[in-house]
């Protein structure tokens, strides 16, 4: 049986890089998609994914209770996305040392679809960027990443009640901005498969 996240995190705290590798294997795609949904660019999301996990490593002195590792990673991702330019500067060495992507037929086939995704996401982000940043964070975590209110609260370091009120305010405001907003939610793909 695979060790739970919090067990792995305990190993990370004891300086075990391989344990972070296991956490990466487990959550990389969720964080990758979350980053994409915050910025609307797949390539940049891939870089941010690396940054999130290296930042997690750098914060390994943090003690994390059971079932809080993934929300905590979302919290890091939220900060990394928010401070994207600064993050990229701080982690420049990491990014610049990445192996170059070579030809990958399966990947190439997705190029057109990825471009469509980016256009679609940019349209959505153009709308949500009219919200206050803290409301954007809540919306992204709860509506797009499908975190529970409790997990979103943990990720953002705010009380659960605050998450509820911000989400409610964000949805109302978006419906004011575009009455069609929210009607597509049934079509939306969950962030976690």
């Amino acid at each position, binding site marked *: 049986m695979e060790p739970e996240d919090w067990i792995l995190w305990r190993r990370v705290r004891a300086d075990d890089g391989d344990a972070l590798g296991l956490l990466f294997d487990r959550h990389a*795609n969720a964080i*990758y998609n979350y980053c994409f949904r915050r910025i609307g660019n797949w390539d940049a999301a891939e870089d941010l994914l690396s940054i999130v996990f*290296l930042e997690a490593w750098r914060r390994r002195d943090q003690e994390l209770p059971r079932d809080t590792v993934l929300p905590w990673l979302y919290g890091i991702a939220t900060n990394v996305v928010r401070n994207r330019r600064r993050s990229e500067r701080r982690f420049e060495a990491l990014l610049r040392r990445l192996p170059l992507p070579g030809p*990958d037929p399966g990947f190439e086939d997705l190029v057109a679809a990825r471009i469509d995704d980016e256009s679609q*996401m940019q349209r959505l982000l153009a709308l949500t960027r009219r919200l206050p940043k803290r409301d954007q964070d809540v919306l992204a975590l709860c509506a797009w990443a499908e975190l529970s209110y409790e997990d979103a609260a943990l990720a953002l370091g705010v009380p659960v009640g605050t998450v509820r009120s911000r989400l409610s305010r964000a949805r109302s405001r978006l419906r004011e901005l575009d009455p*069609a907003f929210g009607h597509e939610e049934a079509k939306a793909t969950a962030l976690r498969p």
Partner: protein
Amino acid sequence: MNADHSIPTYRELPERRLVDRRRHLLTAIDLERKSGFPVRRVALLAATALCAVAGTALALSLSAGSHEPNPPFLVRATHSPVWGGHAVGSARCSALVQLAFGCRGILAVPGRTERPASVAVPAADATEIRGGTREQRKLLHSILAAMRGNGITQIAIEPSERAKLTLRMNATAASGEAYWQEALVAAAFRDLSKTTVALKAGSSNGAPLAPALVSPPRARPGDVKAARSRFDAAAEKLGVHLEALAAYRPDGVAVSAVLKAEDPAGFLLHAMPRFLTAIGDPWRDYDGVYIRLVDGSGATVWETSTVVRMSEGSVGSREDLAGCSPVAGFGSTPPPCPAK
């Protein structure tokens, strides 16, 4: 507004990319774990030193060379005087490097079998410079004029989000030597124009260059001749065959040399350290140094470079010869040198 606001499909990173990212992450944390220094304090220093790797790696991976099956060519960053080291040192991981970063974190160029191409020399004044102000173009021309024989074919001066301007460069070949020349030009331009510059060349994706050194290695009259003489004398003293030698003066003195050896392993192990000592200190006496070793067939088996103004250093080696290299690079322990 009445657009479709549904969220794009969940996509997984292709397995290969995921594996690359994971390996890269583990390499990065391995470096940090062994650093013994607060990571954030050294991050900038590491960035300045390691960017050489990316550039050279790209250059090598893109290089148009022979497709004969050769052992992979590995490229690593070296340490620089930013943290008090010297590029020329023991073949083994020096104590300082071990202390600062550990001697792990190899950056290989996976699957690379091509030999790095040498830089073809374009016709004189062949570099096309576009964009920017007249003064900026003039300054670039003057730097390039002092680097006659360089392989840079185009420079575009473009706006930059993260610096005052971006220099986008192309060269006749995507090689470690070309990237070295581009870095020299960009750093000299940054210092002489007293502006912040980002570089797009090789794999430099537009990131700003590190801040200028307090005392950049500016050349004084006679320095170029003296540098040439040092290389000639070193080659003569050691009986080394100097295939090519070029001295540039982008602002300080930069020297590029190609050496040839029939027994590259033995040469790297025994003669190259003495050659490197004889030419002076690449971090103090030069703006930059590029040295390439070719084997009897003319294939590149080893190369090293320094760009002092950017605190960049790199070493590349045919994989089986990495253990013979007299320049220590970041990376895992190399295989034993086949020479005794």
